[in-house]
């Protein structure tokens, strides 16, 4: 497991990019700016203030799985366009673009691995693929991960990062909620365990389905975990939102999380759970 490492920081307080938005490598917590390799070296955690930057699915797998142990499953699944959905652009175009941009077939990667030598099934989401939205491919991949975990009698570890259901698949995206719930229940009935790791953000349909059904549920610091996002809550209710609205810290206080685990400690923490769940009376 990677320990916290001190390195020299370049580009502190970098100016915003030309489009006015801050550079993705600029820390929203403290304004420090990093090179890609610096961030990578620190597991995308700001060495100054511990802000957790987003982590791509492949990097997450590299963090959790023992080196070379990951064997991907169902990599060839792609969505077609069941509704012929067209907003400002066709859904098929958005899909193709996301695949090119991320190198992924959809917003979840699943497969077998070992983690500190414990065998495990992984289901890891990638927010970069259409906001980590859950359509039929994500639902199907998650269900297959549950089935693989049951078949191999190993725990399932899921890592979520999702804006919710993929509305371009209409009502079929809503159906991924019960579909993934059924998959977890089948896994449980087969004696399997699920450990749910919520990364930033885990919201809407993913929070309201499988992510909330882990035997153990943990989150990364500062992750937004809410069924409805703060903007919509504010607009709908005109309530004053607490500063930590929907954040992992608030969810922990209200009893929804077993722990908040900083990324550098995540692998050790999960390994401990795998030893426990692999060891039933």
């Amino acid at each position: 497991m990677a320990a916290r490492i001190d390195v020299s920081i370049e580009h502190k307080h970098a100016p915003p990019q030309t489009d006015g938005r801050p550079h993705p490598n600029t820390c929203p917590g403290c304004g420090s700016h990093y090179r890609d390799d610096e961030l990578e070296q620190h597991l995308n955690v700001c060495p100054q203030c511990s802000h957790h930057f987003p982590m791509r699915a492949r990097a997450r797998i590299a963090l959790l799985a023992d080196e070379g142990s990951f064997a991907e499953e169902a990599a060839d699944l792609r969505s077609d366009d069941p509704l012929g959905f067209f907003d400002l652009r066709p859904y098929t175009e958005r899909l193709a673009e996301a695949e090119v941009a991320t190198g992924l077939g959809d917003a979840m990667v699943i497969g077998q691995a070992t983690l500190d030598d414990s065998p495990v099934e992984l289901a890891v989401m990638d927010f970069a693929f259409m906001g980590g939205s859950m359509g039929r491919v994500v639902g199907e991949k998650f269900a297959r991960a549950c089935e693989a975990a049951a078949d191999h009698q190993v725990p399932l570890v899921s890592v979520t990062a999702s804006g919710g259901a993929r509305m371009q698949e209409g009502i079929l995206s809503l159906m991924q909620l019960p579909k993934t719930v059924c998959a977890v229940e089948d896994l449980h009935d087969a004696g399997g365990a699920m450990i749910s790791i919520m990364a930033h953000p885990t919201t809407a349909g993913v929070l309201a389905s499988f992510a909330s059904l882990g035997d153990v549920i943990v989150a990364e610091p500062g992750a937004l975990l809410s069924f409805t996002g703060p903007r919509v809550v504010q607009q709908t209710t005109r309530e004053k939102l607490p500063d930590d609205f929907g954040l992992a810290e608030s969810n922990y206080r209200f009893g929804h999380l077993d722990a908040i685990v900083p990324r550098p400690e995540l692998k050790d923490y999960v390994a401990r759970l795998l030893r426990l769940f692999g060891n039933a009376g």
Partner: protein
Amino acid sequence: MPGEAEVQLRERLNRLRSLPLLRGARLSGELERLQRQLDRIVAEPSDEQIWRSVELARHPDRPYTLDYVERMLEDFVELHGDRGRADDAALVTGLGRFDGRTVALIGHQKGRDIQERSKRNFGMAYPEGYRKAMRVMELADRHGFPLITLVDTPGAYPGVAAEQHGQGGMIARSQAVMTRLRSPIVSCIIGEGGSGGAIAIAVADRVLMQQNAIYSVISPEGCAAILWRDAGEAQKAAAAFKPDAGHCLELGVIDAIVPEPSEGAHTDPDASATLLKDSIGESLDELVGLSSDDLRRRRRDRFRSLGTLEIVKAP
């Protein structure tokens, strides 16, 4: 000449017959379902007809859960409270007799006048409402009572306290309880089937939908605001994501459409209730003979296989 929906269905049937069996797809059941749809399908609705459904589903005079309860159930006893924090009036639960058989009922409840609308929170439940629903589901399970759920909500309530009390997790757990239930479950979308707040009580053996109800992952306004960056484009959004009963049937999300009086359910609540009662009764009759293990297995398979067939392998 065959309509577009029919053509699409025939195409899918052909595709099905030639595709390799995807795990979890339960292909034979799917074929049957498509064949049944073909037998029943009406012509593809136009964009205007879809929007008309949105309007009728939200019509202020549309019958709500309790309007059907008083027409469908005898000896109804409303059950209150989540046994922990509150009694959420946006979700009604109770026991009653349906065609001589004791059933448990769970339904969203909107209000008719301003005062009741506020009390019922416009049919938008808090986590406490879903916890009450789960309690009554478990009661039904314990006594083998069939469960009827009536779905009519713009969505789960999007407020600060609702989030703090675990709206997302509660919706997930409510679905999980339904997947474990040993008694038959029939759900019907009777108005707005709004997203997570709807599916929380709609993981059923038979999912019905009234002719002018809508069932969707997001409201037309919400979808328009996100994708068109203009909530005013709701009509366009609705046409794009097709929340109407015809499309839901075509996509396999619902099992049957419950007819309404010709101008909409609100024009004749008694007739609507009779039609609804008939459909629910027919569905229950199909289910009561099944063992609890069978029911659960089929219920999970139903949702496990939804939409699986449209997934394709990368070229």
